């Protein structure tokens, strides 16, 4: 089985081979014999690789796995060979750019809405002030543009990822 794993931006082709109860993975010509154990109820995996011991916790994110191993955190996304090939054909079509939705990068309470539909905004201009854990944070425009819509009002509680403002 072939998979493609992208670790912090770099892609590795991984070929998995199982035989006699051991699992080998060949990555770019290097063969790894992996003893991988899931520790129940802890999101933890123990890996022995040529005697070296690693313990990773795994946290699923929307688009990647976060592997945390004591001193280091790695973001890895994986796809199988077929998906990888399919995606390669369509990737050219994904660059199109329409109106941009500014989303909340954290949950919080809306303390101020500083713009209204029709306003022109500069790059870096504050749009909304969000408060969480006693700290106020300004949400700023990443690009210049015109406010097309405002989705929140003062005192609203918003979840992470909630739409705040649309800029066109």
């Amino acid at each position: 089985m072939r998979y493609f794993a992208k670790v912090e931006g770099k892609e590795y082709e991984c070929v998995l081979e199982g035989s006699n109860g051991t699992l080998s993975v060949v990555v770019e010509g290097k063969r790894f014999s992996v003893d991988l154990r899931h520790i129940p109820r802890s999101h933890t995996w123990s890996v022995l690789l040529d005697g070296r011991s690693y313990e990773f916790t795994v946290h699923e994110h929307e688009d990647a796995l976060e592997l945390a191993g004591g001193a280091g955190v790695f973001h890895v996304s994986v796809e199988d060979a077929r998906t990888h090939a399919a995606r390669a054909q369509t990737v050219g079509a994904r660059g199109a750019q329409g109106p941009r939705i500014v989303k909340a990068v954290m949950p919080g309470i809306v303390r101020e809405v500083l713009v209204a539909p029709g306003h022109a905004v500069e790059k870096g201009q504050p749009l909304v002030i969000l408060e969480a854990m006693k700290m106020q944070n300004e949400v700023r425009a990443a690009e210049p543009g015109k406010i097309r819509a405002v989705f929140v009002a003062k005192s609203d509680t918003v979840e992470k990822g909630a739409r705040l403002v649309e800029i066109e």
Partner: protein
Amino acid sequence: MQIRKVLIANRGEIALRVARTLREMGIRSVAVFSTADRDELHVRAADEAYPIGPPAPSESYLKIDRIVETAKKAGCDAVHPGYGFLSENAAFAQAVEEAGLVFIGPPPSAIAAAGDKLNARVAMARAGVPVIPGSDKPAATAKEAEAAAAKAGFPVALKAVGGGGGKGIRVVRKREDLAAAFARASAEAAAAFGNGAMYVERFLEGPRHIEVQVLADAHGNAIHLGERECSIQRRHQKLLEECPSPFVDKDLRARMGAAAVLAARAVGYRNAGTVEFLVDRGGSFHFLEMNTRIQVEHPITELVYGVDLVRLQVEIAEGRPLALAQGDFFPRGHAIEIRLTAEDPAAGFLPQTGRVQALRFPQGPGVRVDSHLYPGQEISLFYDPMIGKIVVHGRDRADAIARMRRALVEMRLVGVKTCAPLLLALLDDARFRNGEVDTGFLERFVAEGTWQRLPELNGLPAELPAVIAAVLYAHGRQGAGRAVVPPASSGDWVAAGRREQMKWGGPGA
């Protein structure tokens, strides 16, 4: 008197920590909680627990009348305020005393004297404690602040008269930035402390923040328990503290200790308190402010001086004289505390929320943990992002640093990002290891960005994360590798596989 039942007017780790010592003293503990906190450990650890309102602190943990009423109804004879919330609110201490209860802390007059940071400056200067050049009266408007700043000289620090702990402080480097900074800082101060008045101090470049623990009883005895080095800060919020300070020798310790005791006496202090100083490169120290409550970082003093400060607080509040004199206390070894905050340092310290999926605290020699975290907990956005403290004690500073490094590597927390990766990199930094830090060091270190480099992990081959992720993925989707990988009980990987498929259009795309 003997205290028998104490209401803890707080939440989180400090409420839990106070409840622990109360239990050890055979004193009943009474927790209070907002509706967001019903399941919190401080509620479960106490002997009694009562709801006091909705999640917003202004509706619960800051409600003086409701808390005092709860204490009376529950039959308490004392109140412990913890830190934050109402801990430095003189009106609260007053209300507690007027209800016939003991406030485990200083008299309201001392809180007021120290809490009005501006008046405290004036009082300290008068008592002979060195202070930083700056205001001698409050600025209610940007205009008044500008006048004071012109006198002190830029850069200046705008500070909330009612503030403390670095909250509501803004540094202003140029005259033209003052008005906007004043507006924001004053608004935050008004929201946080109910008082928008500010004062101005010359902003010292590159100072250390070193504070001294003091203890004063009701019988006129006042001593100090050495210093804590608190220079590792971001936006005036401490992230790592040490005891003793690598900068302070026996002589400086004695001089700062004496000044701290003088400061405590100047405001008529009683109970445990902390006198914060800014120390310049030449070793001159200037009074910064006095914190009239238990500090977040009190455990490092406890480890190095062999005391339980909360127990001493209660004993002092009971009217008992300090059992030991200044000469009986001396430092042993070196302690470091880090504050684990639910903030992502890689994303501008964005507050993180989420559910604690898995949790393993460090243990073993020289490790102490104070935390209200538990598996399954939902980190809420209503309160401080500090979710726990890891504290270590070692033979000397090098051993303590190595021990903290080990503790952080051992810790596992799945579900919420924290500042731990930054702190781990900090512990490895040569300048930090040499003790060459000032209050601006951490922000410069963060800005340098080198801490985000992937660490050299036990000779980890660069390919290993890819290998592991591929195996997990395959395991979840096809059952490949089942011979060596036991089934994941959660089925997470099946779900992850499905999502990956969907995200990238599935096999047929």
